[in-house]
């Protein structure tokens, strides 16, 4: 199976959907002539031309709102946010308009729009560029939120997102763009709302999403090597819809849970999961649920410190041992 970078997998997904559906348009800052700020859309202008690959001014509220309006008429815009952090200047367009239009029209309208881009800390760009808004966005009924961790998932989920008739907020990670993974040559889709057990285990369940999945896998490896502990790692892949069944099945198997995310802890995805697990699998738990998140402060710039602010394999390992105590 070919090894593709995460960014190449995203590009393939968009290219395939552009060929499949003439309503698909790629739009965003620097996506065309500049070849993408993170080279996700590299070469696409040349291949598909300026009607399908559209450079926008730095004007997120304008072009996201424009995309939402066009989607009401059946255009399928795939809009790149150079950083998901910039969603705040388009909050009204994303979470008032895209999220609510169907509801407020009593189901007369739907908005098949995808808004995608990196949503992560860890790259020493300071707090303004390091937001992880999956929890904030998923708090809004009307949108779907996806956080792929691997090249395979990135491609399969993005293709599903583009075909989805609801607004999908697709959150990537700049630190994953260069990560390679196996991506089949044959077409495939990964459905939204289906978690993936990235590593099977029997002693402990770690639930994570996005890059935290890779950190969890690294911690799981250390737990195996250093402590002979068998860890199952569940990758949510999708935040809303949420695959509760896979999470609960793993909890019922291992009876111990650690929730890991690169988001800040307060009202994070882990909080929702902790509620779910105690509600549905209380009697299966042999220990209190623990969480590992980013340390609760705005994202620090200082490079060695920011690496510590995010959940490291060591911090995950430590928390895992506490759960297993």
């Amino acid at each position, binding site marked *: 199976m070919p090894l593709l970078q995460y960014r190449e997998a995203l590009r393939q997904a968009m290219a395939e959907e552009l060929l499949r559906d003439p309503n698909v348009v790629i739009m965003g800052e620097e996506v065309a002539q500049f070849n993408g700020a993170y080279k996700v859309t590299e070469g696409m202008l040349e291949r598909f031309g300026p009607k399908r690959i559209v450079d926008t001014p730095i004007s997120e509220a*304008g072009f996201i709102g424009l995309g939402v309006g066009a989607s009401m008429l059946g255009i399928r815009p795939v809009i790149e946010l150079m950083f998901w952090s910039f969603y705040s200047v388009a909050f009204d367009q994303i979470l008032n308009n895209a999220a609510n239009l169907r509801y407020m029209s009593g189901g007369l309208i739907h908005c098949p729009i995808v808004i995608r881009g990196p949503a992560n800390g860890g790259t020493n760009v300071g707090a303004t560029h390091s937001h992880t808004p999956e929890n904030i966005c998923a708090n809004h009924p009307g949108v779907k939120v996806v956080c792929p961790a691997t090249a395979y998932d990135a491609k399969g989920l993005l293709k599903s997102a583009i075909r989805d008739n609801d607004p999908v907020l697709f959150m990537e990670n700049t630190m994953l763009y260069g990560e390679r993974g196996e991506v089949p040559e044959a077409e495939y889709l990964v459905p939204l709302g289906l978690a993936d057990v990235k590593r099977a285990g029997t002693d402990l369940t770690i639930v994570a999403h996005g890059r935290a999945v890779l950190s969890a896998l690294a911690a799981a490896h250390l737990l195996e090597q250093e402590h002979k502990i068998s860890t199952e790692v569940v990758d949510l892949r999708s935040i809303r819809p949420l695959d509760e069944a896979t999470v609960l099945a793993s909890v019922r198997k291992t009876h111990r849970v650690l929730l890991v995310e690169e988001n800040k802890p307060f009202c994070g995805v882990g909080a929702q999961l902790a509620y779910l697990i105690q509600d549905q699998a209380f009697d299966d738990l042999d220990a209190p649920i623990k969480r590992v998140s980013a340390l609760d402060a705005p994202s620090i710039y200082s490079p060695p410190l920011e690496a510590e602010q995010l959940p490291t394999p060591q911090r995950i390992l430590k928390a895992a041992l506490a759960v297993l105590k």
Partner: protein
Amino acid sequence: MTKKSSTTAETKNEPVAGGHSRAPVNAPLSAEAKIDLYRQMIRIRRFEERSLRAYQAKKIGGFLHLYIGQEAVAVGCCSLLGPNDHIITAYRDHGHALAVGMDMKPLMAELYGKATGCSKGKGGSMHFFDPSRNFWGGHGIVGGQIPLGTGIAYALKYRGVKGACLAFMGDGAVNQGAVHEAYNLAALWQLPVIFVIENNGYSMGTSQARSSAGDLARRAEPYGMDWGMCDGHDLYEVRAGIVKYLERAREESKPSVVEVRTYRYRGHSVADPDNTYRTKVEIEEYRKTKDPIQVFQALLLAEGVLDEGRLAEIDSAARAEAEQSAEFAEASPYPAVEDIQKDVYWEEDNPGEKKSQGRIFFD
């Protein structure tokens, strides 16, 4: 005539000889077509008056932004729409909904929060929609609908459709960033959108003089867009003032900004006190000299198109229709609790085509 510096500047819509009734867009109107325009304005007014009574009787929740005084703007503009033209507006949307041909009953039922409402009781006064009539709402956030309207125009151009979008906003919206971002995109990409500023003089309780620097429509100039102004109390003038921009949008895919000067008699919302920022004398003055229904009625009487008997007939029919809409709303059921979680996701409402898995609603 105001001299504009830019080649793209338009003049205020100058009266043609014999008044705007002789303007090319109005001259061919049949007597019945004129009467229909008049009827539409009367229907809006009677609907609004009836909804006000329902609001005062506590049948309607939240806000009620009445269109009374502005009827000629929506009716005049919407009367120009062709099959490929679209509109979108802000929260003072009842007039536009009626002007595109929506029935009073689902509108009143929506105000009552009933399941038979145009949005099934989920949108309320500010959120009327009818995509089958190319009416895309009804939007609550000041200026927030303007990028959407620009996107509608983008979709038309993308598909090669010769149509346009009229994107309505109030005078308060012109200071919102989203509006300027939309102006820039519309001009940059030459999208067939006409930004119609319904300037009723007040953004809520703040007058234009206290909220906006310079002329409102003139802000089109630095974006290189055509712009113009017209008075909104004369329906003929509204049509004459809008039509050239609409045709230019359809035929040449050119955006523009048109400021239509109008007035509202009621508060920003009927829940607001209307005694802090303007005088009763001012309201009365407008009502006496510029009321759009009175103005058009006088024109049609003078033209011999209408007579007193027909006027009374139209009025009583509109009152009866409004009354019937209130009866319909009153008699209609509220949505069920189970309905709260419908119409959130297309996929959940179309389970046969559902592709995603997992839980989408939480408790």
